[in-house]
């Protein structure tokens, strides 16, 4: 039995497809298996952060520190550097080795190489982003055609007024020309912003604070329109690695749409609620309204470029598209439910495990 155990231990230690190392409280690697040596190279007399990431001190938000402190097993996705300088993504399990007196002297780090999966994930996100940009370019034609129609119409009305000596008509036509020049300028600006995007500045943010700021931004406008706007912030929502400006933009778009849907509804006591909650590792923002809701035709085209049901000059139709783009950049999803005459709920769902890492951590060589 002892032989079998010894054999299993040796086999498991050196032949499992996991890079295993054992670190002490100084993060020094005291033991490692063959897979670890094959992957990360020389490890004796070195510390885990030097071997995994080429850092000079332990990582910010180090999971090993937390496991040493509370003895709990942790699973975390990390990115490091191999001896040849290539990036490696790995899923690491931190398991404490607890002595009989309760002291945690060592932590076992077992890491699985998930680089291929992460590459596929990034490629999928990039493909989705390109598809959205492609659709947008096609949709731009639709927006421009409408503006062209307005410009052409303005020119016609001016000419018609001149032929008839009707100064009121000339003025009317000229206003059409001016309005449509302003519209195409706004289109061009929004489209460029959409196509170019901005580099997300990922940092720990408080989702509830962002939601509260958005509600604060619109509360007066809502009050004047006779709409109740309130925040329903989940107490268990903790900080998340997100681009604050991007999330703010998404929530502004959703709340603005919800208020517009209420404004054109005839119902009394209209309300919009921006809520947050967290469940099963997923952070959720939810914007609900009891406005007009959408019929089948509108629902089909919600994420179509330049599609807007708003009055002329009120919307370019890029809001939800931009929202979807930002959410996808965070590895999240946008969904909605809507019933004509009853209202709509838009939901942004972010799996914490898919949230991006801070730009400086992910991009610098030798650093995560």
């Amino acid at each position, binding site marked *: 039995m002892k032989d079998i155990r010894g054999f299993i231990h040796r086999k498991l230690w050196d032949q499992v497809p996991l890079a295993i190392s054992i670190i002490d409280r100084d993060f020094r690697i005291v033991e490692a298996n063959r897979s670890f040596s094959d992957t990360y190279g020389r490890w004796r007399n070195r510390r885990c952060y030097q071997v995994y990431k080429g850092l000079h001190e332990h990582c910010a938000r180090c999971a090993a520190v937390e496991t040493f402190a509370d003895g709990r097993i942790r699973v975390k996705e990390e990115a490091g550097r191999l001896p040849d300088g290539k990036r490696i993504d790995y899923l690491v399990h931190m398991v404490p080795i607890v002595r009989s007196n309760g002291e945690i002297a060592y932590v076992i780090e077992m890491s699985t190489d998930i680089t291929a999966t992460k590459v596929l994930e990034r490629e999928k996100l990039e493909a989705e982003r390109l598809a959205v940009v492609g659709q947008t370019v096609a949709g731009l034609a639709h927006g421009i055609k409408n503006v062209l129609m307005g410009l*052409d119409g303005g020119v016609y009305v001016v000419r018609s007024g001149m032929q008839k000596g009707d100064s009121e008509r000339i003025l009317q036509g000229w206003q059409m020309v001016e309005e*449509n020049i302003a519209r195409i300028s706004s289109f061009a600006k929004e489209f460029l912003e959409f196509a170019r995007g901005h580099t997300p500045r990922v940092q720990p943010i408080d989702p509830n604070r962002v939601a509260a700021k958005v509600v604060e931004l619109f509360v007066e406008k809502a009050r004047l329109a006779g709409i109740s706007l309130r925040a329903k912030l989940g107490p268990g929502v903790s900080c998340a690695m997100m681009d604050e400006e991007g999330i703010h933009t998404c929530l502004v778009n959703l709340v603005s749409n919800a208020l517009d849907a209420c404004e054109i509804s005839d119902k009394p006591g209209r309300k919009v609620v921006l809520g947050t909650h967290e469940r099963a590792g997923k952070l959720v923002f939810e914007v609900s309204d009891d406005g*007009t809701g959408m019929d089948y035709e509108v629902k089909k085209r919600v994420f179509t470029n330049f599609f807007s049901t708003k009055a002329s000059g009120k919307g370019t139709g890029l809001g939800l598209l931009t929202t979807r783009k930002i959410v996808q950049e965070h590895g999240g999803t946008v969904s909605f439910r809507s019933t004509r005459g009853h209202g709509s709920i838009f939901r942004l769902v972010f799996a914490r495990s898919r949230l991006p890492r801070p730009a400086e951590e992910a991009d610098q060589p030798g650093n995560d």
Partner: protein
Amino acid sequence: MTNERKRKILILDDEPAVVTYLETLLKDNGYDTVCAGDGKVGMDKAKIDRPDLVCLDITMPRRSGIRFYRDLRADPDLKSIPVVVVTAVTGYGGDPESFKKFLSSRKRVPPPEGFVAKPIDREEFIAILRRLLS
């Protein structure tokens, strides 16, 4: 001008600039006009004013042009009014024929009589109206 009754055209479009444009163009060509900014008001006006023809935009708030078209065709009193779709929508296959097919597919209604893409060619547009109203 003859003593003949002027033909009345209902213009449905949510863009005020487009409405002003078409209204001016049609009046310059001897037609009377009635205007509406969405499908719901448009249907009310169709019932009251009994236009000889409808110029219909597709993307409109409240009730879209598609829904207006199907409702119009379902109304025994209004179903014979010719409709010219005036739109910038290029989806549903991207050409007028597949668009007309799409419009008539679900409720098995006949396709619209005319289709003009925005921005319109004025001569072609007026020629279509003249043909349909002759």
